[in-house]
């Protein structure tokens, strides 16, 4: 058990080191997410009134599409130099590779959210300290990463690599997006935990189900 964990950490460490050196993915995704925030603001006419209904959607569109952009990279990087084969030769269960990559994907999305969310809150003149929102974001990101990591491995092995990931990913994460947006609305309006409890439960259920299913199914994606 300990060895499994170490190997997951090793894969995670390797990915973090690479990303810290190049910073290519995080910068492009951050810029993209910011652009989404700005463009959507203009698209909705920049009205001051009614914004509290539209604002949560804007945040989640930015995070969802930023996620799609970032998740593609998770396995695309392993295509060069046939590194994925190098990983597959290692004496580890294939699921370990999934969890190692998942850790990286989750951390990456978390970093994006940590930067984007305060900017979003400031742009829309909302309070900056919202622990409930932090929880919603973390739960949603777990779901995104669970699905995105699995589908990244699939998409990267097809001919239309870049378009395949959103086609696979977006329909499946619909419940997460719905729950996240529906939970964000009351939080921005300062409501209590009771209002968002069901949505949190849905996200937790989704996360657990998909983490389990993806772990079981991942080896079939990698094998030849």
């Amino acid at each position, binding site marked *: 058990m300990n060895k499994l964990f170490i190997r997951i950490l090793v894969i995670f460490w390797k990915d973090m080191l690479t990303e810290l050196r190049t910073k290519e993915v995080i910068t492009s995704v951050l810029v993209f997410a910011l652009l989404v925030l700005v463009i959507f603001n203009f698209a909705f006419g920049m009205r001051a009134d009614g914004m509290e209904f539209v604002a949560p959607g804007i945040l989640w569109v930015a995070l969802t599409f930023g996620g799609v952009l970032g998740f593609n990279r998770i396995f695309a990087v392993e295509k060069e130099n046939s590194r994925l084969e190098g990983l597959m030769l290692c004496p580890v269960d294939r699921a370990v590779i999934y969890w190692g990559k998942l850790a990286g994907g989750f951390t990456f999305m978390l970093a994006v959210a940590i930067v984007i969310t305060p900017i979003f809150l400031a742009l829309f003149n909302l309070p900056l300290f919202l622990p409930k929102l932090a929880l919603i974001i973390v739960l949603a990101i777990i779901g995104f990463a669970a*699905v995105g990591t*699995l589908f990244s491995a*699939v998409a990267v*092995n*097809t*001919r*239309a690599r870049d378009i*395949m990931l959103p*086609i*696979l990913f*977006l*329909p*499946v994460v*619909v*419940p997460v997006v*719905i*729950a996240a947006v*529906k939970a964000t609305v009351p939080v921005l309006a300062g409501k209590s935990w009771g209002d968002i409890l*069901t*949505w949190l439960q*849905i996200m937790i*259920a*989704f996360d657990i*189900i*998909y983490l389990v*299913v*993806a772990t079981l*199914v991942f080896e*079939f*994606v990698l*094998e030849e």
Partner: protein
Amino acid sequence: MNGKHSLRNNILLGLGFALMVAALYMVFIYVPTDKYTGIVQRIFYFHVPVAWVSFLAFFITFVFSILYLWKREVKWDAIACTSAEIGVVFTTLVLITGPIWAKPVWGVWWTWDARLTTSLVLWLIYVAYLLVRNFATEPARGARFSAVIGIVGFIDVPIVFLTVNLWRTQHPTAIIFEGGLTTPMLITLLVCIAAFTVLYVLLTIQGANLKSMETDVNRLRNTQAE
């Protein structure tokens, strides 16, 4: 195809034909016009069975995807894939007949209610299943990847339905029927469901057989060439 299968197929064909004729008779002649919504309500007898089949088809894809990943027999994949192809057609019909029925009755083309929204997401997942097969670099990979999608996607469907349902309970929902289903309506509906289910089974068997034969022919052709 050996004799045993031909007999089974012929029985199914006969049954399906009989059921379809019965269904047509019942929908257009037997069942009385709905007093609240009029003639257009008859689309209901088409819309509901087609929706049922679209979900059944995806369930079959789910089951045979698991079987394929487990046993790797090409015929399991042929069934899963054919079922998905038929399923996407039926789901498209659901998405078309839904609005056709909704517009005269409720005045809107589309409502984001749980059933329609789930059908839309289901359609998107079917499309993803078929596209992965299309864009895979080799047929074996395509079969494997789409089997994964078939499993992961199917699990999503009930979650989507529950989530949208929850979302919609915060809004007033359109009421489908004032006064519920009368007996003749119920019987008609059941006959239609049976008819379309048999149709689905026939199409799936034929389609899967065709795919298996294609694979065999290709294999023979390649062995010849070598």
